[in-house]
C-alpha cells in the first residue's frame, strides 16, 4: 500500500524533470539569430510621448568614477524631462557585468544600454542583440571627426563602428621622480625602450650592506594587456587575419620573436635583481610602486590619480616603453564601450539610449568625465573644457596619455585583436609569460605552448557561432 503512491510520485517527478529539460533544450536551440532588423530609429519616435522613455543603463563604474557618471546621468535627465529618463545600475566589475548580460540574454530581459569591456567586443557582435553604432551615425549624419581616432579604430569591425567608446584608457610608464633625481637620472626624459629601462634600473636599484635589495629599479605585474600594448608599439599583429578584422582570427601570435625578446628581458631583470617579481595581480604591482619598492612601473592612465594620492614621492609619467628603439610606436586602448540593445526593445527605448550617448559624447560632458576620472576624453575637444584644463594645469602628467595616443599611427596593428575569446587569450599570454618567469621553461617554449593552447579555444568558439 505504501509503495504505490511513492512510485507514482517518483514517476511524476521524473516526467516533470524531463519536461523541464526538454523545454530548456528547446529554448537553447531556438532564438540565437533574432528576427528583427537591428537598425537605428529616427529622432521622430520621441515626439509627442505621454511619458518619458525609461532607459536602464548597466555599467561597471563605482567609487569616484561612479559618482562622476551619476552626475552626468542626472544632468541629462534634467535636460530631457518628460522625454528620456536614464537610470544607472552598477553591475560589478567588467567580467561580472558581462556574465549578468549573458544571463539577461538567456532570460530575454536585457537592459536598454550596457557598458561592456574591450575584450567582450567580438562576443557582443556575435550575440547579435545590439544595434550597430554605425547605424545611428548614418541615420543622423553624426559627425565623428572630433572623436578620438584610435578609439574609433578599435571599435570599428569590418568597416562599421559597432559600439560607442566611452571609458577608455591606455597604459603608461610611471616613474618615481625622487628616486630618479637621487640616482642622478633625468625624470623628465624617462627610459623609452627595454635597454634604456635596464640601464636606468642599474642606477636606481639600491641594496643594503648584506646585498638585499631595498629598492628595485623596475617592477610591474604580469598583465596580459601589456603584451598587447608592446605588440602594438612594435606594429606586430596579436592574432591572424589582420588582427581578426579581415575575417575570424584562428590563432594568436604572441609567440612572436618580439614578445619572446620581451619575456627574456623581463626574466633577466628579475634574475639580476633589477626588477621585483610581481604576480598577475595588478594591485600588487601598484603597491610595489607606491610603496617605493619599485622605481618604475607600467600601469593604465586610470591609475594616475591613485598613484598621486598614495605615494609620498613625486610621480612622473612617460610613454609606454618600446621593445627596441627602432619600433615604430603606436598605442592601443583598453576600457569599455557602450552598446544599445535592440533585440526586445522598442524604437523609443533605442532612440532614448542614443540621445543619452550623444549627450555623453559632447565636449562639455567629456571635459567633466576626463577631469573626474582620468579616462581619455573620447571627444578630443573635451580636453579644452574648463574642468579638463584645470586638471591639466595641476597635474601635467594627465596629458601624457592623450599625447601618446595622438602620436600613434592608426593601422590594423594598433587597432588590436578582435576575437571572441580575447579574455582567454590574455590569460594564456599571462600564463606563458609567468611560466617563463617561474620555471625552467624557456621564454620561446612557454609563449609557443600558451599560444597553441589558445588555438583550440578559438576553434571551439568559432564553431559554436557557426561561421
Amino acid at each position: 500500500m505504501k509503495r504505490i503512491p511513492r512510485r507514482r510520485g517518483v514517476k511524476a517527478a521524473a516526467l516533470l524533470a524531463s519536461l523541464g529539460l526538454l523545454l530548456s533544450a528547446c529554448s537553447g536551440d531556438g532564438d540565437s539569430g533574432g528576427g528583427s532588423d537591428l537598425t537605428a530609429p529616427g529622432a521622430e519616435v520621441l515626439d509627442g510621448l505621454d511619458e518619458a522613455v525609461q532607459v536602464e543603463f548597466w555599467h561597471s563604474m563605482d567609487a569616484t568614477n561612479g559618482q562622476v557618471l551619476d552626475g552626468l546621468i542626472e544632468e541629462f535627465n534634467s535636460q530631457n524631462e518628460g522625454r528620456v529618463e536614464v537610470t544607472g545600475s552598477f553591475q560589478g566589475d567588467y567580467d561580472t557585468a558581462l556574465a549578468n548580460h549573458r544571463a539577461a540574454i538567456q532570460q530575454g530581459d536585457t537592459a536598454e544600454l550596457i557598458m561592456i569591456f574591450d575584450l567582450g567586443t567580438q562576443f557582443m557582435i556575435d550575440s547579435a542583440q545590439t544595434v550597430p553604432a554605425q547605424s545611428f551615425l548614418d541615420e543622423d549624419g553624426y559627425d565623428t571627426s572630433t572623436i578620438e581616432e584610435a578609439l574609433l579604430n578599435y571599435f570599428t569591425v569590418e568597416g562599421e563602428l559597432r559600439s560607442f567608446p566611452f571609458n577608455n584608457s591606455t597604459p603608461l610608464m610611471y616613474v618615481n621622480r625622487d628616486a630618479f633625481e637621487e640616482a642622478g637620472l633625468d625624470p623628465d626624459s624617462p627610459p623609452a625602450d627595454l635597454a634604456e629601462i635596464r640601464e636606468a634600473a642599474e642606477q636606481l636599484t639600491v641594496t643594503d650592506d648584506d646585498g638585499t635589495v631595498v629598492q628595485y629599479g623596475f617592477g610591474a605585474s604580469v598583465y596580459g594587456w601589456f603584451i598587447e600594448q608592446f605588440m602594438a608599439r612594435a606594429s606586430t599583429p596579436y592574432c591572424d587575419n589582420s588582427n581578426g578584422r579581415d575575417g575570424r582570427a584562428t590563432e594568436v601570435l604572441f609567440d612572436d620573436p618580439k614578445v619572446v625578446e620581451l619575456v627574456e628581458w623581463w626574466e633577466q631583470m628579475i634574475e639580476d635583481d633589477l626588477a621585483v617579481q610581481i604576480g598577475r595581480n595588478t594591485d600588487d604591482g601598484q603597491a610595489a610602486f607606491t610603496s617605493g619598492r619599485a622605481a618604475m612601473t607600467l600601469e593604465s592612465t586610470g591609475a594616475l590619480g591613485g598613484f598621486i594620492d598614495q605615494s609620498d614621492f613625486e610621480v612622473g609619467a612617460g610613454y609606454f616603453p618600446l621593445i627596441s628603439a627602432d619600433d615604430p610606436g603606436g598605442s592601443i586602448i583598453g576600457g569599455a564601450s557602450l552598446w544599445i540593445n535592440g533585440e526586445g526593445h522598442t524604437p523609443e527605448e533605442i532612440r532614448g539610449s542614443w540621445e543619452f550617448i550623444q549627450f555623453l559624447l559632447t565636449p562639455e560632458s567629456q571635459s567633466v568625465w576626463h577631469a573626474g576620472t582620468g579616462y581619455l576624453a573620447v571627444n578630443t575637444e573635451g580636453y579644452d573644457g574648463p574642468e579638463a584644463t584645470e586638471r591639466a594645469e595641476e597635474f601635467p602628467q594627465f596629458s601624457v596619455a592623450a599625447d601618446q595616443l595622438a602620436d600613434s599611427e592608426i593601422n590594423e596593428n594598433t587597432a588590436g585583436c578582435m576575437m571572441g575569446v580575447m579574455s582567454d587569450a590574455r590569460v594564456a599570454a599571462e600564463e606563458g609569460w609567468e611560466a617563463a618567469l617561474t620555471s625552467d621553461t624557456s621564454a620561446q617554449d612557454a609563449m609557443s605552448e600558451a599560444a597553441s593552447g589558445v588555438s583550440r579555444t578559438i576553434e571551439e568558439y568559432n564553431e559554436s557561432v557557426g561561421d
Partner: protein
Amino acid sequence: MTPGPVSERRAASPPPPTSKRTRPARDATLAWGFLAPSVLVFALFLIYPLGRTVYLSMHGNDIIGRPNRFVGLSHFAEMVSPEFGRILLTTLVFTLGVVVPGVVGALAVVLLLEGVLRGQRILRGAFALPFAFSVASASVVFAVFYSPGNSVLNGILYRMGLDQVPWLTSQEMALWSVAITTVWMNLGYGVLVLAAGIGAIPKEVNEAARIDGATGPRLAWDVTVPMLGPQLFFLIVISTINALQSFGQIHILTGGGPVGSTTTLVYSIYQDAFAYGTSDFGRASAQALVLLAVVLVCTVIQFGVIERKVHYS
C-alpha cells in the same frame, strides 16, 4: 523524520480497534504530509540542481551559455589528460596540506592548553578566534602578508636576517601559502570542537589514569586522545570536505596561479564556468560531478577506515 519510527510505535502498541488495512495507509499519508516540506526543499535545491548538472555535463554550450548540442560523455573523456591529472594532484596535495596540519595543530593547541590552569578560557577563546573571520577578510589580510614586493612576512624575515620567500610568485610555494592561510582559518573551529570534547571527558577517567601512574604526555596520548576520537573523526571529515571545496582564499590570493599551480578542482570549475568571460557550463558541470564523486569517496573511506577505530563513550 522517516515513516519508520511512526509505524514501529504503532506496531508496538496494542492492536488498533479499526481495520488493519487503513491504519498503515493513513500513517503513510500523515508521514508524507510531514515530509512534504523537506522533500520539496530537497527536490528544489538538491535533486533538481543535481539532475541539471548531469544534463549540462553531457551538452555543449552556445556563446551565451545555453546548452545546444548533445555531446555524450565527451566532457568526461576530455578529463583523461595530464592537465586534469595535475588539477587532481594539486587538489590532493592541498587537501592533505590543510587537513593534517589543521587537525594536528588544533589537537596540539587544546592539549597544551590543558596544562595551563590560569586564563585557559581566554587562551582558548583567542585560539578559536580565526573561526570568526570570513574567508574573504582573512584572505585579504594574508594577501597583505604575502604581497610580492611589500610582503609583511618578508619584512619580518628581513629584520631577522633571513632569506626572502616568494610566497605567491613561485609555483612551488604558492600552494603552501594558500594552505597556511586555510589552516589558520580552520584552526579556530578545530579548537572549538576539541575543547568541547575535552570538557566532556568524565573526570573519573583522568583520575583513574592518574592513580595508575599516567602523567603528562602519556596521559594525553593514551587517555585524552582516544577519548577525543569522535571529535577528531568529525573534524577530519569536515575539514576534508571543506578543503576540497576551498575557493575564496584561492581566488583572492592567487587566482589559481602562478601557471595553474594553485588550481584545485573547485577553482577549475569556476574558471570554466564563469571566469574570463567564458561560460562552458558543460565542462564545468562534468568537473562538478567528478568533485561530487571525490568528496563521496573520501567520506565513505573515512567512515569505513577511521570510524571503526573511534570509541564512542
